[in-house]
């Protein structure tokens, strides 16, 4: 794998740090007029999602991480693993619980999502920013309620629970923002 000098550091670059793949968020060049130059870097650990700060001596090199994003279709779960497929090559990948984590609650079978691969094995799954899902369970609402009211919990077909306005009913399809977990609107069939 390629190595990168601190001069090549920029947001989005994937490097290895403490044996984990990481993504650079921010890189700052720090240099006292009469002293050593440093690169102060904010880094996200792609395995744990944690953000840390780390300093390198300017000019040092670090190993790159073989991390790529691929669009994949979610196929099914066998209870232990979740199976995904690259639509144009039919390559299949199985991801464990750590990799799918919370993302899976937004996905139903056949949905397309982004899989992050490290050394060709699944590292994490990111659902689309917006998904459209059917409500499978919610309390019946009362006529005349508007979206201004408090709302109620609703369970979606993929398993996620979101707060929806009181007028939304079982069987309706709604649009949800997966980044915040918030209801956006109803979807006309």
């Amino acid at each position, binding site marked *: 794998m390629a190595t990168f000098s601190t*001069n090549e550091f920029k947001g989005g670059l994937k490097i290895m740090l403490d044996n984990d793949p990481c993504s650079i968020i921010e890189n*700052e*060049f*720090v*240099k*006292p*007029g*009469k*002293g*050593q*130059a*440093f690169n*102060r870097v904010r880094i996200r650990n792609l395995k744990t999602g944690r953000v840390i*700060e*780390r*300093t*390198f*001596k*300017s*000019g040092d090199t670090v190993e790159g991480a073989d991390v790529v994003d691929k669009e994949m279709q979610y196929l099914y779960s066998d209870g232990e693993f979740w199976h995904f497929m690259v639509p144009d090559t039919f390559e299949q990948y199985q991801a464990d619980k750590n990799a799918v984590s919370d993302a899976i609650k937004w996905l139903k079978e056949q949905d397309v999502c982004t899989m992050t691969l490290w050394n060709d094995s699944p590292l994490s799954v990111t659902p689309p920013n917006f998904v459209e899902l059917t409500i499978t369970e919610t309390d019946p609402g009362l006529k005349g309620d508007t979206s201004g009211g408090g709302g109620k919990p609703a369970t979606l077909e993929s398993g996620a629970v979101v707060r929806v306005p009181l007028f939304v009913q079982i069987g309706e399809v709604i649009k949800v923002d997966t980044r915040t977990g918030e209801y956006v609107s109803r979807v006309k069939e």
Partner: protein
Amino acid sequence: MLAAIRRFFEAREVLEVETPLLCRATGTDPQLDFFSSQFNFPPNQQTLFLQTSPEFAMKRLLAAGSGSIYQICKAFRNGEAGRYHNPEFTILEWYRVGYDLRQLMAEVAELLLQLLQPFHAALPTRQISYQQLFLDSTGLDPLIFSVEDYRVYAAANSLPEAVELCGDDHALWLDFIFSHRVQQMMEKDTIYLLHGYPAIQSSLARLNVDDPRISERFEVFINGVELGNGFYELADPVEQEARFDKEIAYRLSHGLPAVGKDDAFLHALNSGLPDCSGVAIGLDRLLIIALGSVSITEVLAFPLTCA
């Protein structure tokens, strides 16, 4: 800002000078990387350097009896680009014959207040020694190198990488902790005049006659941004040559680009540099402070990416 600077020095009868940007020799400081270029003048070809600061040339003028002088010019530093760094930047550098460090620090504060006055309410000035500020901010004494204490501090302040990165290099530890913690802990909107830098970071300053652990060097900061650096100038040619030799040896052993001593400068010191203090201020950074900008690219019409 440039007109205000010229008025300031005119009123004080300090002479404006110009010295070459393209020089036959340059500084040997291992922390400063220079640009070099080829002068094609058949049958000879000569390497010339873009100067990293006008210091040597201005000291040659001082040795020749110029009296107090100032200059506004470009300086070039290779390998430096970032939020507060552009490889080509503007320096204001001046020397005061007969001034000691305290007198020069007072003049720096006066100039900064005058230049920032159209943009800011008068900023308070804080004069404090490097040692005291370091102690206040971290509890560590920068003059006593107790690597164990430094390690404990780094581990407790989420800087674990410092242990490996700095090893047992005292100056590197100081640079690391100072730039990562002390600078960030400075009070906002205050002019810091930080004096008594450790002797291991003396650069071209004299050592203190009473305490050889510290040097006659100061730096000025506002909002954690390093604006300038001043010395009670080293005038001893033997000591100067020894420091050159040390830095050249360091460059050689660390695979840095080789550079020779500036003989013309040493010659000038030999003929006698008057007792003087000098300081350089980065004017682009001063503009950052004046305008409240977040990056040097905001105050340059054409930063490196579009130069």
